[in-house]
């Protein structure tokens, strides 16, 4: 009974991950819209009124038709350049954070998960802004994410054996 539940859970997880990825590849699911276009503007939005903060994430999203009259009419052909220095600073802060967090011991698995989580945030910043993935067609993201999903799948496939080893060798 419990095994069956586990299988069902993995099935739903797989459907969610890989199904969403395939949807993204055929172009019906856009997660990039959920990443703010310019983190600095969003941060500024916290300190100013909320009306300004909503502008950078506005629906323009690369389609030339609904382009807003202000700011960047030429941005359709060349990518806009986000502010790189604040992103660099954020990456530095996260580097310090990950070093500090590694001093707090919460078990092998716990520390590993924390390290991976911070690395994922840093990696997302590099890919989204330094590599302009955020401003690229959304299809590209799925070309890259699908291999990663398979990578996670094969790790999950091997890990149960480690559980039986007990990890103490």
């Amino acid at each position, binding site marked *: 009974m419990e095994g069956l539940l586990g299988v069902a859970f993995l099935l739903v997880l797989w459907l969610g991950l890989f199904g969403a990825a395939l949807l993204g590849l055929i*172009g019906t699911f856009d997660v990039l819209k959920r990443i703010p276009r310019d983190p600095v503007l969003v941060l500024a939005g916290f300190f100013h009124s909320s009306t300004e903060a909503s502008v950078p994430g506005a629906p323009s999203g*690369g*389609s*030339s*038709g609904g382009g807003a009259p202000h700011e960047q009419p030429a941005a359709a052909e*060349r990518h806009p*350049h986000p502010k*790189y*220095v604040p*992103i*660099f600073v954020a*990456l*530095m802060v996260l*580097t310090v954070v*990950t*070093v500090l967090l*590694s001093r707090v011991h919460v078990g*092998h*698995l716990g*520390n*590993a998960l924390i*390290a*991976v989580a*911070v*690395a994922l945030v*840093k*990696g997302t910043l*590099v*890919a989204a*802004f*330094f*590599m302009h993935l955020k401003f*690229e*067609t959304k*299809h*590209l993201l799925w*070309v*890259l994410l699908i*291999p*990663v999903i*398979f*990578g996670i799948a*094969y*790790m999950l496939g*091997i*890990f149960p*054996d*480690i559980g039986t*080893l007990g*990890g*103490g*060798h």
Partner: protein
Amino acid sequence: MDAAVAEAHVAALQGEDAHAAEPFRMSAVKFAMWLFLASEVMFFAGLLGSYLVLRFSHANQFSEEALALNWPLATLNTVVLIGSSLTMALAVSAAQAGQAPRTARFLGFTFVLGVVFLVVKAIEYSTKIHHGIVPSMSLFYASYFTMTGCHALHLIGGLVPVTVVGLRALRGRVDGGKVELVGLYWHFVDLVWIFLFPLLYLI
């Protein structure tokens, strides 16, 4: 039936979804670079995956050895490499604005920071080897040398195109598209290190 398909295609092209009808609107070389990077993701996913599996099956031994690594030096290298990514991003935006001298300057910074990373890595390696720590010593050190070695090889390779486009920019010839491609590769190498650093040195 074919006519209906063609009609739908034309409708898609004329309609609001013109962008959706031609999703990969980028140069072929840029798309090729992204495909290459996708295959590289798989290459490093294999390395990282096998490392993590080995690590958790030998948890105590591995973390003992991992703690013996020089994490302050690796932290310094993290700062250096992310810094090189910043200068590379600035070089790309300069190149796309057609500013050759600025492009050359930032590519120069990127090159120097890349070399600094490799020098620090070399110091780290030679100290290890001096203490008799070689890949054959243990599973952990075999993983350590393989992963950081493969990463360093990627970085060494990346210095070549940085040098080439940098020298061209120095002579006033700047191609935003090319510099962008080099930048993509460079940022990817940085991205790999962002994962290697905590997983090897910190846990």
